[in-house]
C-alpha cells in the first residue's frame, strides 16, 4: 500500500514537472523566435534600420512574407535610453507596428492616424522615466527590447520609387545619440 502510494506520488510529481516544462516552452517560444529574428537580422545593428527589398520566392527571413508590402525593421533596445523613431509618412497605406520581446503587437500607428507628412515616436522602455513629449508620440514598450516594423502597401507599384524613398527617410536611434 505504501509502495503504491509512493508510486502514484512519483507519477503525479513527474506529470506536474512535465506540465511546467511544457508551459515554460509555450511561454518562452515566442521570445525565442524574436531573439532568433534579432540574431539573424539585427544582431549587429540594434537601434538601426534594416530595409527589405520587395519579397520574392528567395525571401526566407519570415514565413509567409507579403509580396504586397515593402518592409523596414528596427530591432530596438530601450534599456538605457528611449529610442527615437522618425519617418516621412505616405498617402497610401503605411503602418508602424511595435512588437515586444514576446512578439505581442502592443502598438500600431498608421497613415490615417497622422495628420502631418512626417512622424516622430519616442519609445520608452519599462524602466524609463517618461518625459513630456511635445513633438511626437510617446509609446511605452512592455519590454526593453523588441522590434518596430513598417509596412508600406505596394499596390500596383505605380509609386514604388516613392516607397523606396520613404525607406530612406526612416531613422531609429537612441535618444542619447
Amino acid at each position, binding site marked *: 500500500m505504501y509502495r503504491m502510494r509512493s508510486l502514484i506520488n512519483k507519477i503525479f510529481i513527474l506529470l506536474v514537472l*512535465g506540465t511546467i516544462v511544457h508551459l515554460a516552452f*509555450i*511561454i518562452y517560444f*515566442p521570445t525565442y523566435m524574436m531573439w532568433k529574428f534579432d540574431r539573424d537580422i539585427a544582431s549587429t545593428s540594434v537601434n538601426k534600420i534594416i530595409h527589405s527589398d520587395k519579397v520574392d*520566392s528567395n525571401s526566407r527571413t519570415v*514565413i509567409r512574407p507579403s509580396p*504586397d508590402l515593402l518592409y523596414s525593421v528596427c530591432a530596438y533596445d530601450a534599456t538605457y535610453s528611449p529610442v527615437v523613431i522618425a519617418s516621412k509618412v505616405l498617402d497610401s497605406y503605411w503602418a508602424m507596428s511595435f512588437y515586444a520581446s514576446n512578439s*505581442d*503587437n502592443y502598438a500600431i500607428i498608421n497613415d490615417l492616424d497622422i495628420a502631418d507628412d512626417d512622424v516622430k515616436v519616442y519609445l520608452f522602455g519599462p524602466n524609463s522615466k517618461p518625459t513630456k513629449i511635445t513633438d511626437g508620440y510617446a509609446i511605452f514598450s512592455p519590454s526593453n527590447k523588441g522590434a518596430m516594423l513598417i509596412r508600406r502597401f505596394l499596390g500596383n507599384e505605380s509609386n514604388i520609387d516613392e516607397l523606396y524613398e520613404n525607406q530612406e527617410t526612416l531613422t531609429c536611434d537612441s535618444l542619447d545619440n
Partner: protein
Amino acid sequence: MIFARKYLLYLIIILLIAALETFIAAKIYPKIAFVKNDIWTILPSPGDPDRNIYTRAAVAAVGTFASKKPEQAYYQTEIDIEDQPLNGNCLYKLSGEDIDSRWWSITAYANDGFLIENTEKLYSYNSETVNFNANGGFEIYFLGNNDFITDVSSENWLRVNQDENFNISLRIYYPGEEFFSNLKRVNLPIVEKVKCIE
C-alpha cells in the same frame, strides 16, 4: 552512480511528458482557436497583447509579426470547396466580390510557407492589381501546369508548383466591421477545382 542514473531517467520522463503535451496541444489547439468560415480559417486576435499563451506560440511558429485588431484580418486555406487539398496537378478558380476593406491581397504559398518560384515573378493579386469583371467581382486562377493556360478565362492567374500541395492567404487591411462581428459568416471568396491532369 545509480543515484545519478535514476534522476537522469526522471529528467528524460519529464521531457517526454512535456514533449507529449506540446504535441497534443499542437494537434488540438488549431481546432479550438481557429475560426472556420467555409474553406477559410482565421485566428481572431493573432497579434493582440491579451491573446493566450497558445495563440502567441502558434503565431510565433508561423509568422511572428502578426497585427492586432483592427489593422488586419488574415485568412488561410489549404482546401477547395470540396474539402480536398489544393494541389498543383489541378487548376483552381478563386472567385469573389470586392472585399469591404482599405485594401486586400490574395497570395499563393508553397507547403513550406514561402512564395512559389515563377518566371513571371508574380506571387499575389491585390485590390489594385486584380482585374475585376463586369459585375464588380473577380476570379483568380491557380495552375501548376502550362496545359491549363488555355482553360483560364481571366487575366488573373498565379503559378503554383506542379505535384505539390499549396495554400492561399487572404489578407484584409482595415476590414469592415463584419470581419470582426461575423467572422464565421462574412462573405469570402470560394476556391473550386476546374480540372486536373489526367
